[in-house]
């Protein structure tokens, strides 16, 4: 039987519309049903081979509800998020397309939103983007024509009012579930909850947070968020991820902007026999702590270059509670086709009449 979040006519097709849902996608359904959602980040390939994308997505199969297609994260060049999403939607995955304001102006962005929605992208995540200085091409021109807030508003206007930012009409608006990012771990700390309120006002329906290593700090933030009643207007997914070693953690802390790693985390990693295993355990421990915080609707696992551990982390933390997210099952006809092709290649005579008879009266 097909998964209940799958169009019976094909996994790549949009789902039936449901009342109160703004997209035809799986992620929104999972969140609105009140289930604990899991999303992961796909490491974008530096190649033009679609198989690279499929392989990297297959690792998450059956463990995540959405796959983030990053838009040149850290200002490093990779396959574009539009391209990754085009490939993923063909296979029926539920990609979350990230759009960073760093590389595209409002004309390009609005065009991409329409193109992506036409290809079946149901989730769009609006980001400001890292500065170009952080990446492999620091000489590039930073665009930043919109910021994440005006980008959210732009896409919301396109969806709800069926209009471009200029006011020109759209014949079919993009049906997308809108996301944004939060970072509770960077100053000005007391402004951060209000910034989330602004993002919700601009159109954010779900947010994914930056890596959470400081649970007490996050708890403090969530308390403020609950006081403002924001957790009822928006689904909050906490960013988590394994650290490969204490050395990596230290490097990230001093070289990647916006990631806050407390000293005791590094001390815990340093003190471990097997740092990689400890990093994974630490991630599971953090998941178990944050999932209990009121207002948290899911986790976003960022296991950069350790994607193979995502399944293990999700399984061991038990956040899915036995639920099985959609997984890509091979088409039952595929094996038959492969067999026939093999026969044709071997030069075996095929009786067309007989095969037509079978196809007509004994369908699969």
């Amino acid at each position, binding site marked *: 039987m097909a998964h209940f979040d799958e169009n019976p006519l094909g996994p790549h097709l949009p789902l039936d519309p449901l009342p109160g849902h703004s997209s035809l996608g799986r992620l929104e359904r999972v969140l609105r049903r009140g289930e604990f959602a899991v999303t992961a980040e796909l490491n974008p390939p530096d190649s033009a081979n679609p198989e690279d994308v499929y392989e990297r997505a297959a690792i998450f199969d059956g463990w995540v509800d959405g796959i983030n297609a990053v838009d040149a994260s850290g200002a490093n060049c990779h396959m574009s998020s539009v391209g990754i999403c085009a490939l993923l939607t063909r296979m029926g995955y539920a990609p979350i397309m990230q759009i960073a304001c760093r590389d595209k102006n409002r004309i390009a962005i609005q065009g991409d939103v329409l193109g992506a929605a036409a290809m079946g992208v149901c989730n769009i995540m609006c980001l400001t*983007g890292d500065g170009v*200085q952080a990446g492999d091409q620091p000489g590039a021109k930073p665009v930043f024509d919109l910021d994440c807030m005006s980008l959210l508003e732009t896409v919301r206007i396109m969806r709800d009012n069926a209009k471009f930012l200029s006011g020109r009409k759209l014949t079919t608006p993009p049906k997308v579930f809108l996301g944004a990012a939060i970072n509770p771990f960077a*100053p000005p700390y007391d402004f951060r909850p209000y910034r989330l309120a602004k993002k919700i006002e*601009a159109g954010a329906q779900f947010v994914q947070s930056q890596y959470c290593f400081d649970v007490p700090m996050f708890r403090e933030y969530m308390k403020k968020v609950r006081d403002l009643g924001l957790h009822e207007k928006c689904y909050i997914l906490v960013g988590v991820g394994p650290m490969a070693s204490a050395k990596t953690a230290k490097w990230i802390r001093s070289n990647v902007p916006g990631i806050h790693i407390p000293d005791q985390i590094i001390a815990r990693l340093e003190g471990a026999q097997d740092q990689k295993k400890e990093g994974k355990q630490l991630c599971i421990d953090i998941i178990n702590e944050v999932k209990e915080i009121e207002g948290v609707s899911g986790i976003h696992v960022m296991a950069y270059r350790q994607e193979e551990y995502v399944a293990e982390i999700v399984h061991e933390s038990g956040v899915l509670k036995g639920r099985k997210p959609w997984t890509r099952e091979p088409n039952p006809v595929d094996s038959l086709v492969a067999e026939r092709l093999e026969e044709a290649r071997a030069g075996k005579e095929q009786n067309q009449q007989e095969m037509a008879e079978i196809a007509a009266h004994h369908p699969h």
Partner: protein
Amino acid sequence: MADPKPGNAAPAKKAATGAYTPAGVSPNRRARHKYTVRLWAVRHSRFFEWFYNRFAAAFLLLHPVWKLFGYERVERPITFVERHVKGFLFDCRMCGQCALSSTGMSCPMNCPKQLRNGPCGGVRANGNCEVEPDMPCVWVQAWKGSQNMVNGNAIMNVQKPVNQSLRETSSWLRVTAEAAAARETAGRDA
């Protein structure tokens, strides 16, 4: 090259190779060494808010004068004055659509990402900018400035994207012309 700036992986890597990198280079502009006046203006945001309200009222009173000469004709000298006064006080970038009263008197166009709606996620723990490690984050300052202001809550408003075609034009005159037009329509309706 002096010490590589912490927090920027790529420039630090380049510096480690020993290749020549000119000092104070940033992808957006030559980094400034002092932000004294700008920071002072933020610390006195309440005074500037009060002063600007008086100033805007005076400008509106002069509306018949601007109209007599024609807004197009006074545009150039006023823009000149505005650029230099605001340039000195706030490091104004002449975006032509001033948001200072909504941003705690800290000009958001000084942010390397030109964010007009709040800080990005890259702010350093010491409150400095991710892109320019020596510069205090414009939005950390804006939040502080807005806390001193009577109408500081304006920082919660979602700002529209910048209209790039209004660059290098006078924000003072536009606000005055709009206020005068609003006053006239209100007068006509009454």
